[in-house]
């Protein structure tokens, strides 16, 4: 029925449809915001969509107006939802892009507010100073009211400026977002930015044309705004879809993580600093020997930790919370009915906002086996080092015995002399005093020898301390002095007192140097007496290192041996074990240093022990 098509009110139908559709969208997104207050973008969209409904409604009202006054009033009321539409759009862009310029943002809102105020202060409205007559024209098969004769308002330029500012604001925000790169950002910029810009282009130019009465058509804001409205709606729909997908993927990834952590025997944990609550995976509880299915509080966890390690563990957790630094620690646990285990925990403090971290989360794993192997190899190395020391001191035994017998003999002779003095009728007190002084001094001399020996012979774990190069070298010289004398070997040492200290185990470092000096003495033993010289010394190198050197005037090491001397069980000595230099190098490396050798045939050999300068001193 073509006749009925003609009579169908297309304008009314279309405007009602888009108004109802927009209203539905607005209500849906407003409801989402109510459910999730974080979803501010949904709120701004709801404002835009509902304002759009208002715009469509007042537009339709204007088109059906019967008098110029009524038409002017509809236009006046149209400004109210229009304000919401524009401010909502500006907010949406601001929220969704996060890139808009602040001054443009506030200028637009301010100008639109001013326009709104002027709109209701002026008659008939913001756009017109006077509306003289209206006209009914045929539009989309329906008779609609348009303005015929009217005077444009002198403030109209404000509307134009706002429109331009809005266009610049949106374009600028979209370009900035685009330039950040990434498919997501670029699509958003194109969809929303393009949509809004297209609307401004169409609606802005068209509306101005109507207002300046270039064309005689109804003011149409709602239909072109369908473009950005749909774009916004699509983007939000996509976001909520991807949110659902993300949630699903998160679940998957959590299961995968748990599987991987379980396979790696890693337990996951999270320590809440505020509530002291501990969240953990099944694996974590298993390591601690706690029932896998039960939730356990932090007291229960701590009860499993070895009492000696609890204060340290709490301190480290506290420090992590305080400073927000990572925590990496190892401690012992005694799970109920099981043996003592070593557990390593690594964690990262999380601080949601600047200031104190609120929780530490991380992994924990059983390191008992690694600890055991490490302990065993440490023990082995200690034993080997000890064996090396015993064997070296064995070489020195007879000269050390001599060194010990000197003060003891002196004490004996002094005691005998004292008893002679006492036998006389008038004992010489001054003489006796001198004798006692000498006895005391010789006693301490003997004790020094014994102490040196005892220190070197004791089985012990390493103790790091700050020592000077001079102390180390003096100690070594004291040990070999007697032996060197009896073998006619000169030990030359230029005291290096201004050398920086090093950090290390004194006994082990002496062991290395003693080994080098004894080797050097063996190297020169076959030389004529005047050529038997061993020179020890120390110097500071650049980049915070100290070098201790032992040089001999021996025949040098043949090249075919030079490469092997640091290998274990390589020796050229009939009674040697061949472990001295291997141990020495291991000790040097354990101190973060190195042990190197330089030899010239007919020119002697120099060994260099390089160690890092002690941090305490350098700091």
């Amino acid at each position: 029925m073509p006749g009925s098509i003609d009579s169908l009110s297309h304008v009314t139908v279309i405007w009602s449809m888009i108004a109802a559709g927009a209203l539905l969208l607005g209500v849906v997104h407003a409801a989402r915001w109510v459910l999730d207050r974080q979803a501010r973008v949904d709120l701004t969209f709801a404002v835009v969509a509902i304002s759009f409904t208002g715009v469509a409604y007042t537009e339709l009202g204007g088109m059906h107006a019967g008098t110029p006054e009524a038409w002017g009033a509809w236009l006046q009321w149209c400004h109210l939802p229009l304000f919401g539409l524009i401010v909502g759009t500006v907010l949406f862009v601001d929220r969704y892009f996060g890139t808009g310029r602040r001054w443009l943002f506030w200028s637009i809102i301010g100008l639109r507010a001013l326009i709104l105020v002027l709109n209701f202060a002026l008659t008939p409205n913001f756009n017109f100073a006077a509306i003289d007559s209206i006209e009914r024209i045929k539009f989309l098969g329906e008779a609609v009211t348009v303005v015929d004769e009217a005077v444009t308002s002198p403030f109209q330029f404000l509307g134009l400026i706002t429109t331009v500012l809005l266009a610049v604001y949106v374009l600028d925000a979209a370009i900035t977002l685009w330039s950040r790169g990434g498919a997501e950002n670029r699509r958003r910029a194109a969809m929303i930015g393009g949509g809004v810009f297209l609307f401004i282009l169409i609606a802005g130019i068209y509306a101005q044309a109507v207002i300046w009465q270039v064309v005689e058509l109804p003011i149409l804001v709602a239909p072109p705004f369908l473009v950005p409205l749909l774009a916004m709606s699509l983007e939000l729909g996509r976001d909520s879809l991807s949110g659902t997908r993300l949630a699903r993927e998160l679940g998957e990834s959590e299961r995968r993580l748990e599987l991987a952590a379980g396979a790696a025997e890693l337990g996951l944990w999270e320590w809440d600093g505020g509530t002291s609550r501990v969240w953990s995976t099944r694996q974590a509880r298993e390591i601690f020997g706690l029932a896998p299915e039960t939730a356990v509080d932090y007291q229960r966890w701590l009860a499993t930790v070895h009492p000696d390690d609890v204060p340290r563990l709490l301190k480290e957790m506290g420090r992590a919370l305080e400073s927000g630094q990572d925590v990496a620690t190892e401690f012992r646990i005694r799970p109920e009915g099981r043996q003592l285990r070593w557990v390593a925990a690594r964690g990262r403090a999380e601080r949601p906002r600047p200031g104190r971290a609120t929780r530490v989360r991380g992994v924990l794993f059983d390191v008992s086996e690694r600890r055991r192997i490490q302990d065993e190899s440490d023990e082995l190395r200690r034993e080997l080092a000890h064996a090396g020391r015993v064997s070296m001191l064995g070489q020195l035994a007879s000269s050390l015995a001599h060194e010990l017998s000197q003060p003891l003999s002196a004490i004996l002779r002094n005691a005998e002399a004292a008893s002679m003095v006492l036998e006389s009728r008038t004992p010489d007190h001054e003489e006796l005093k001198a004798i006692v002084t000498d006895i005391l001094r010789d006693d301490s001399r003997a004790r020094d020898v014994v102490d040196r020996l005892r220190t070197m012979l004791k089985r012990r774990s390493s103790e790091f301390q700050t020592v000077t190069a001079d102390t180390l070298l003096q100690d070594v010289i004291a040990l070999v002095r007697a032996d060197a004398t009896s073998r006619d070997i000169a030990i030359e040492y230029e005291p290096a007192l201004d050398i920086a200290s090093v950090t290390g185990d004194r006994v082990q470092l002496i062991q290395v140097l003693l080994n080098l000096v004894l080797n050097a003495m063996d190297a020169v033993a076959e030389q004529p007496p005047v050529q038997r010289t061993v020179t020890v010394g120390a110097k500071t190198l650049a980049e915070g290192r100290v070098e201790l050197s032992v040089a001999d005037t021996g025949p040098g090491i043949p090249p075919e041996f030079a490469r092997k001397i640091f290998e274990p069980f390589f020796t050229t000595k009939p009674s040697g074990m061949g472990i001295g230099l291997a141990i020495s190098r291991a000790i040097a490396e354990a101190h973060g240093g190195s042990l190197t050798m330089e030899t010239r045939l007919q020119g002697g050999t120099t060994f260099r022990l390089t160690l890092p300068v002690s941090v305490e001193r350098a700091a």
Partner: protein
Amino acid sequence: MTPVVHLVDDDESHLRALARLLSAEGLAVRAHASAESLLAMLSPELRGCVVADLHMPGIDGLGLQRALRESGIDLPVIFLTGRGDIPSTVTAMRDGAVDFLEKHATKERLMAAIQAALERDQAQSLRRAESESLARRFAALTRRELEVLREVVGGRMNKQIAARLGISERTIKMHRTSITNKLGVHSVAELVTLSRQAKLFEDTGSGAG
């Protein structure tokens, strides 16, 4: 010269203690911190003994002993050592060390060794003094008198001597009187003993007496 015990030890404390003890025992002591210090003040008239540490830097005990012998000084040497060192002991004893003591030896043992060394030195110096005076007396004889003495010690009669030397028996008698006067002896037996002490005519052998 009074006998002096020369102590040589590089260990200052032990040196002082030992010197102190020996002084308390009433001995004249001179302490040397090195062998060089003793060798620097050597003279043939030195009397006493040397107590030296075997192990010293520079010239050690054995070196000191060698140096003494080479200078013709026969001071008895006692070695002290802190350790039982067999090769050194053997060398030292072969080279005529009087004794070889551990530093830790008892005082009695030490004093006995020093006493023995001093006695040995005294005997040596006595013997040396005697032979020196003897040598002085023999030095007074003329060449002819020595020739006559040789024949007398050889056990020959005046007649035989006169025939061998081609001079008169009367002249021989005059020489013999002069010899007994110069040497201060009264019998042929004494003359023989003295000549043997002075190690005279050893080449003429054992036929005599």
